[in-house]
């Protein structure tokens, strides 16, 4: 393996991992943007998406659809997983966050944490403690470009991730609902006065963010081959870091942050002592926040008003 191939391969690895982080980070950023709450249960919503994906995919595989209707199968798998998690997201919001909208940050955060523990253990009880195998519908074959290998699954996943992000951007900027979301994020009181239904907007946010997370969950399952009830935690921390790195509340920021975290992780593990990979991620995060507290693309906090 020569140097170009090595670098190219690591780049593929980084972009792939980064786009998954970015998709999960979007959920954090959107929710934070609109209700200023870290949705701790997001990691579990992501895992739930992966589980629904494996349930549907296994069923369709048994029915022989993977061979006969490959594209349709994927659409159904992603669609159902995202729909389920969207409902779950709204349910979580309704139960754990809505009653706390006007209380202190700390209680809301604790409620989110409790929800995260509850969902994670609920999934453990319903889906078992050991990992569940994901049908490998894309196989193990890979395409070789300049010595770097990329599987069909990877290409599909990266393209889908990009498509979802573009769709989200369009939604937020072009549609009425998206504009309402942005208005609510900017100033909730003002938005209410302008006749925007805040509850509705928050509900939509809690559908879209987790649904993107669910898509990421299915992607993780499809590529890495297994899902487990506690896999949300590590992805949560990294995506969380990505969202904050990019500037929490900023949608392009989450995408950029995801990619950067992916590059840092892969880059460090690839060329430097791999045991210190996570230490580096966190150190970079702390440094960025210290030097630029609003994150890379975040709006700088305006001057203190007294």
């Amino acid at each position, binding site marked *: 393996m020569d140097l170009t191939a090595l670098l190219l391969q690591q780049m593929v690895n980084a972009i792939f991992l980064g786009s998954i982080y970015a998709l999960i980070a979007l959920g954090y950023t959107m929710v934070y943007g609109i209700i200023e709450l*870290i949705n701790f249960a997001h990691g579990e919503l992501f895992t739930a998406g992966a589980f629904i994906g494996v349930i549907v995919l296994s069923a369709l595989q048994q029915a022989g659809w993977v061979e006969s209707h490959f594209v349709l199968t994927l659409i159904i798998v992603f669609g159902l997983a995202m729909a*389920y998690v969207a409902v*779950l997201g709204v349910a979580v919001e309704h*139960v754990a966050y809505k009653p706390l909208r006007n209380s202190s940050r700390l209680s809301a955060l604790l409620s989110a944490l409790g929800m995260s523990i509850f969902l994670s253990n609920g999934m453990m009880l319903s889906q078992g403690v050991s990992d569940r195998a994901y049908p490998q519908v894309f196989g193990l074959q890979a395409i070789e470009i300049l010595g770097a290998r990329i599987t069909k699954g990877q290409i599909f996943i990266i393209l889908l991730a990009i498509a979802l992000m573009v769709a989200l951007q369009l939604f937020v900027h072009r549609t009425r609902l998206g504009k309402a979301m942005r208005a609510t994020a900017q100033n909730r009181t003002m938005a209410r006065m302008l006749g925007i239904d805040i509850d509705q907007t928050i509900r939509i946010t809690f559908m879209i963010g987790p649904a993107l997370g669910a898509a990421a969950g299915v992607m993780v399952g499809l590529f890495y081959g297994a899902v487990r009830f506690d896999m949300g935690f590590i992805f949560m921390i990294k995506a969380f870091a990505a969202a904050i790195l990019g500037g929490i509340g900023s949608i392009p920021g989450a995408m950029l942050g995801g990619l950067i975290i992916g590059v840092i992780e892969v880059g460090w593990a690839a060329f430097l002592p791999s045991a210190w990979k996570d230490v580096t991620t*966190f150190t970079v995060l702390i440094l960025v926040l210290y030097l630029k507290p609003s994150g890379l693309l975040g709006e700088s906090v305006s001057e203190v008003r*007294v």
Partner: protein
Amino acid sequence: MVRQELQKLAVYAFFLAILLIPMLGFRSASFEPDRALKIWGVFVGILILNFIVKAVRGGRAAVEAHKEPWTERTRERISRIPRLYTIGGLALLAAVYPLMANNYMIDVGITCLIYVSLGLGLNIVVGLCGLLDLGYIAFYAVGAYTYSLLNLTFGVSFWAALPMGVVLGMVCGCIIGYPTLKMRGDYLAIVTLGFGEIVRLVLNNWDSLTAGPNGLFGMKRPTLYYPSFADGGFSWVAYYLKSLPALYYLILIIVVLTIVGVRRLDNSRIGRAWIAIREDETAAELSGVPTTWNKLLAYALGAAFASVAGAFFAAKLSYTNPNFFLFMESCIVLCIVVLGGVGSIPGIVVAGFVLIAVPEIFRGLENYRMLAFGAIMTIMMVVKPEGLIPASRRKRELHATDPHPHEESDGRDR
């Protein structure tokens, strides 16, 4: 009204079915709806019960509205008991506990007390100063490893290692505190979380110093020295606090000292500055409180208390491992602080026991334990966000410190 409620009920039941049936029904590729339907039934049952209770109460609501809720009434009843009796009774109970309990119960007691002292320490940072810390367990690790390493390499005794651990903990507190001083609450959460993970990973990766994931083993237990006049001479003899009751009393003393310390801080000039910062940082700064310094101080002191608990933990187990200091532990300590009631010392003591001992009692239910833990946390926050025993500020009796005001007082004396 009733129709609306019924409609709501139907919607909830429908959504619950959507949520529960796929997750519970498909454990493997085949569909087994029994379990899913049963659990769905339970949930719907609860909803219906709730509906009935609401409907029945609806008529009575007007009558009962002026009645105080039972929690208020109990609190009032408790507050009527003189404080001295309450505290004395609890102290007596704590003191005689090991005489009545078996080793297992004492061990549970010790664990509870360790978490109580951690909760009290975190209370300084989160409860008093209002800084959200998700990596608090790192300081616990610092204490544990400081004692372990000092004892194993240099044979330093527990008591000598304690101040060193405290100092190191405070230094670490300042290191994490410094870059976070300017940050907003939520950024603070992720940075402290990151810092906690960094500490654990460093302990895990620095093999030559910390033995990495192998952990350190064989630390001596804390000692008591008593004079001996054997052989005509005079010498100090070490007595190792090896038995569980002895260790229990040691941690009990640590907790009592921590309570006294935190209470004193709470009621001091520094404590008031912290609460002022928690309430309104800008106003505090503009009332002459050096916020930066006081925030650092809060981190450092919180870390110092955790460090003491950590050293005790390492000495008690005679073993440490980086895996004992996972993020989940930080969460549990934070839960103790928040569930107990932010800033409330009795609340933290109660919550410490509730969160550690109650799951221990229900250990038979194994996996359902954590499920309930999560659910209770959320429900608690929704229903009673101020915690089990909300903090109340100290009231002053006028006659105790009568200022003897005179007519010409100008309100400003220097």
